């Protein structure tokens, strides 16, 4: 409640976004290290595609889940709502990331994955821009 008085809505939004980014980034790096160490037969063919995919995937996932979590924070029943709301929003991101990871494991050249990266970048820009515009009306409720 005091946050409503002392901070501007966009400050709160970017703070939340930054927190989610750091959390998801750390988790993703940890998971990748575990995968490379312990899953037998998992080798990455093209590390450039792989790392760009992880970077863009983390950014997209963090910004989409921040705004959905903001909506859900205002709802009365919070527990089961998150997967229901986020799944259709995240699906285009997930499908593209899966495809790009597949390309990187198969050892494709960077040029093959440019289409996937374009989709990921446009998804990131669209979601962040729309969150920037809409966060204030969620925050006021």
């Amino acid at each position: 409640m005091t946050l409503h008085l002392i901070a501007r809505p966009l400050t709160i939004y970017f703070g939340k976004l930054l927190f989610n980014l750091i959390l998801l980034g750390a988790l993703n790096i940890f998971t990748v290290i575990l995968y490379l160490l312990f899953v037998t037969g998992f080798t990455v063919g093209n590390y450039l595609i792989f790392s760009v995919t992880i970077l863009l995937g983390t950014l997209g996932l963090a910004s989409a889940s921040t705004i959905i979590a903001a909506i859900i924070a205002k709802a009365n029943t919070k527990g089961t709502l998150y997967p229901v709301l986020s799944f259709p929003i995240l699906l285009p991101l997930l499908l593209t990331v899966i495809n790009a990871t597949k390309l990187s494991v198969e050892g494709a050249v960077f040029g093959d994955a440019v289409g996937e990266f374009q989709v990921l970048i446009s998804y990131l820009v669209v979601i962040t821009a729309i969150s920037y515009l809409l966060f204030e009306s969620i925050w006021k409720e």
Partner: protein
Amino acid sequence: MTLKLFLGIWLSLVIIAGISFPITENPTNWYDLPFVPGLEDKARIIFFHVPMAWVATLAFGISLIYGIKYLSKENLDYDIKSVSSAGLGLIFAILATVTGSLWAKFSWGSFWNWDPRQTSIFVLLLIYGAYFALRSAIEGDEKRATLSAVYAIIAGVTAPFFIFIMPRLVEGLHPNEAFVSQGKISMNPTMLVIFLCSLSGFTALYFWMLNTKVRLERLELKHHLKGD
């Protein structure tokens, strides 16, 4: 009243014509429908499936526009229009899915086989299912209206990705080429007339249903406000 009656007769004629006009190899009479290679008798579904999909798109678009209007004006009447249109859109989207998968059973051999079109309409149904789940989880009219409008806008901006991503991932089998070639509609005149009559008839049906639903919701809101 007369309008309702006219609409009923109009749609009955469209349905009778769509189902009963014979499909022949060489259309000679005015009522003969042409033979479409690969579709044969199954081509009749175009009179019902395409209008359903079109009305669903229209209804979701109108719902989105009223959602944006609500966020800028904060007038609950816009929210009533938005949610009524979304509900109707969901009904028409389900009808489009059902007619589409009936057709798929006889053309592709199974009701559901994750064709890109089927996947994208499945996600559309998920989005609006989530939209109504969100609405039922929020108390307070203004809060519910704002949050569901925000969710509809976020879902609306991510939806185009499906139109561009899905065809890139999988080759579709959805027969657009049968009627649309090089951006032009190539259809026999009789078929085109029935198709356009069906399209306009179902669009009019949607607007009539929307009007009725909006009036009902307004009464319910008034009753609800008086009760508090």
